[in-house]
């Protein structure tokens, strides 16, 4: 499963970022930060080619030696980034899509909470639970 999951706001500041194991947190932050350039490039490219932007899933942003980075952009320009270990070759594209879909649904639930202020870091137990289910089980 995922080793890092991040939610980035429209203005490219982090709303939520979580990685496992914790010791490599800074490395994952760097990876997510660099992936934003690719996300921006894909968004602008898609806008030019296709008039209507139907596909929210951006696919594999860029593969590295150790990890694969996948991107997802909502209609409100909120970006989701999932980092997966490259050694996990059995992971299919449909599974990544389902993970993003669950993440998006949970994010909408957080946004529907009247006590949550848009723009604040996400501190929802339900959201944490869903993210934990998708993260690698560190034992």
């Amino acid at each position, binding site marked *: 499963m995922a080793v890092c999951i991040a939610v980035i706001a429209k203005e490219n500041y982090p709303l939520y970022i979580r990685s496992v194991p914790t010791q490599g947190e800074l490395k994952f932050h760097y990876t997510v930060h660099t992936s934003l350039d690719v996300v921006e490039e894909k968004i602008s490219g898609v806008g030019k080619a296709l008039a209507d932007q*139907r596909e929210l899933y951006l696919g594999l942003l860029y593969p590295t030696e150790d990890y694969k980075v996948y991107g997802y952009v909502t209609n409100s320009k909120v970006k989701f980034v999932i980092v997966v270990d490259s050694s996990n070759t059995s992971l299919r594209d449909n599974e990544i*899509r*389902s993970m993003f*879909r*669950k993440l998006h*649904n949970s994010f909408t*639930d957080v946004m*529907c*909470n*009247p*006590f*949550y202020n848009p723009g604040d870091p996400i*501190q*929802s*137990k*339900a959201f*944490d*639970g869903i993210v*934990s289910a998708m993260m690698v089980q560190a034992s």
Partner: protein
Amino acid sequence: MESLTLSDVEQKYYSELFLSCDVDNAKKVASNGKVLELFRAAQLSNEVVLQITELCGATRLGHFGRSQFYIALKLIALAQSGLPLRLESLNTVRDLPLPRFVMGKNEQETRHMVMFTDAENQGPFLPRPPGRVQAKKVSAHEMIQPCVPTADPQPDTTSPVVSPHQSPPTSPLAWRKHKRQASGGNVDRQPSVPGVVWPHFREAQPGPVPGDGMWSAHSPPPVQESWVSFTDTPPSSTLPMHPPSAQTESSTVRTVPSAMTTNEIQRQTSGYDDPWKITDEQRQYYINQFKTIQADLTGLIPGSAAKEFFTKSKLPILELSHIWELSDFDKDGALTLDEFCAAFHLVVARKNGYDLPEKLPESLMPKLIDLDDSAGVPEPAPEVGFSASPVEVTPNKSPSMPSLNQNWPELNQSNEQWETFSERSSSSQTLTQFDSNIAPADPDTAIVHPVPIRMTPSKIHMQEMELKRTGSDHTHPTSPLMTKPPELSDETKLAAAIKFPGTAVGDGYSSSDSFTSDQEPISSAVNRQRSHSGTSPEGLKVVAPPPPPPRPHASHSRSSSLDMNRNFAAVPAGSQQAGVVAFPPAVPPRPLPTQTSVPHGHRSVEGDGLPAHTSTSPQQMPEQPNFADFSQFKAFAVDQPADDGENPSDGGQAERLPEAAGTMRTAKNDVQAEERNATTVNSAKVSTPLAPPPKPVRRRLKSEDELRPDVDDLPQKSNVIATVLATQPSIPRSLGKDKKAIQASIRRNKETNTVLARLNSELQQQLKDLLEERISLEVQLEQLRPFSHL
């Protein structure tokens, strides 16, 4: 690790204990922490606790997982029951009682625990089923005792009866001790009940004291709720007796959650009411609060209104957010009545110091879901499925788009096929026009010799333009058919056939330009041919030659309508005489030319057969009239000596006789012209551009006539009969035609012209579309080439 066989009660009990200890929700608990406190609450020695920790495997791992935690609890139960600590005995021993944990370390509580142990000791002496019943009764009795000093309005009459029967020697001591406690509590509560409430709030939340005051002022019922919750926690009643201190406060705060969990578990196991259940009084209060925000009980409270309402409780936003997540069961961003009650209940509970549960208790779930307990749990799964289905539908839509695109070119192709068919029909119409112009050609040449010299240059250009147009039109149908050789041969024949109508049209224009009066006979001839069927054209052709010559002479001498009518009447008489005279002598000479031309006839038949199959019904019309033309010429040739004999005898007759002689002379001249060499004809075309238009047309027509009549000559009798029949009906039809018919034919021609023009424009548009498609495809190929390389 051996798998533990736990009963439903044990699983619930253990899972709740594990959740209470697993504060971080990491599914693992550190060895130092709440687990240690929990184990100490079991009233076991440190050595026993360490032994249990080693046996369950927590020492080796460094933490308690769920399985290690359950094993530890099982071992605690064994230790509490006095059995040896062995892993083998976990599954062997049956009907093991649940482990018990004491909330505090007070001496009174320890004495209370001693009472429990005494009850357990009595258990083995009695049979198992009665022992269980007695144990439950004893526990119930002891549980009820603390309620009595709190002035419980519902005393149980059975409890005193059971207690003296089971344990008479120890019961008076317990009653005395409880009485003392009760008397102390009563003394403290009676003089200042509100005082007791105020210190509780202050100790719980010293900071927001004024907030608490506002809360109590705004909502008096929560005070009752706090009172109810106060009774739920008997140990807390001893707090006001002791002096307030940080250590005692921290210890009480820590013990509260364990007390809650133990109380909940005990009540659930014993079948008592759920602590999270809303009482009728509370629900009525919640409903009244709901009405203040939403008058309609079946309506919804929007999130913003709920936020304003619950913010008044002064709870942290994070806790309110968590309460919202728990209470908004359907995740619609609004609260129904049941959801509002659940949220309000959680807020009140949290306000009174209870920890929020990880999941919404079943008692607080909406009623519709409570009716079907099993349906509540799997409900989120189908929701995920529903959310996934629209995403799956989206990719299905994208392949449908190319299928629609594929349909469009198919429609275009079908249109092209239709247009090619229409082109063929148009070519057949041109053939018809060609045949209609044959008859006027002869009289025009005889009468208009001097006039063409002046008009020929412009006419020649017109003919060339028409030829080019016909050629360009022909290229469209040829392009799709180029792939097949047999079709090529058909196309060449079609092209040859199309050339004739072009030249014929040119002749038509020349005749119209020379004399306007000649238009009438031309249109009349066209009407006659079109109005008749296959066999009738032969009759018309037989009649056609006589009428043109007399009309121009008459026009020169007489211009009255009466004279024109006389001329029409004279024409059929002449045709009848010619037919009668020609029939008997025609029989003997025909078999001779048929015998000599048999092989040529076969070849001509084969050649004509192919275009006949490819052509449509309108194309067949012009071919049959050609047969009639040939028969006309043969008849005249055979009758030459007879006509010569008649001429001197009729020298004194009217103009009719010399007219017939003129037509015969023209036929003879045509025959002689055909006999001439081809080389001279070619030289004549090159040297004199004025002459070529009429001569090649006539020769080609004659050659076709010679080929086709051979077929007719074979069945001589049938042809003769057909000619007789054709001549008879042609007379009344010619008389019946009037100017109205001529105008109708003109209109029809105009309509056909407009239709053809429209077809041309449509074809041109399709050509443009195809070119654009070609360009776009080429661009796509160029774009894809670099990808193909990669």
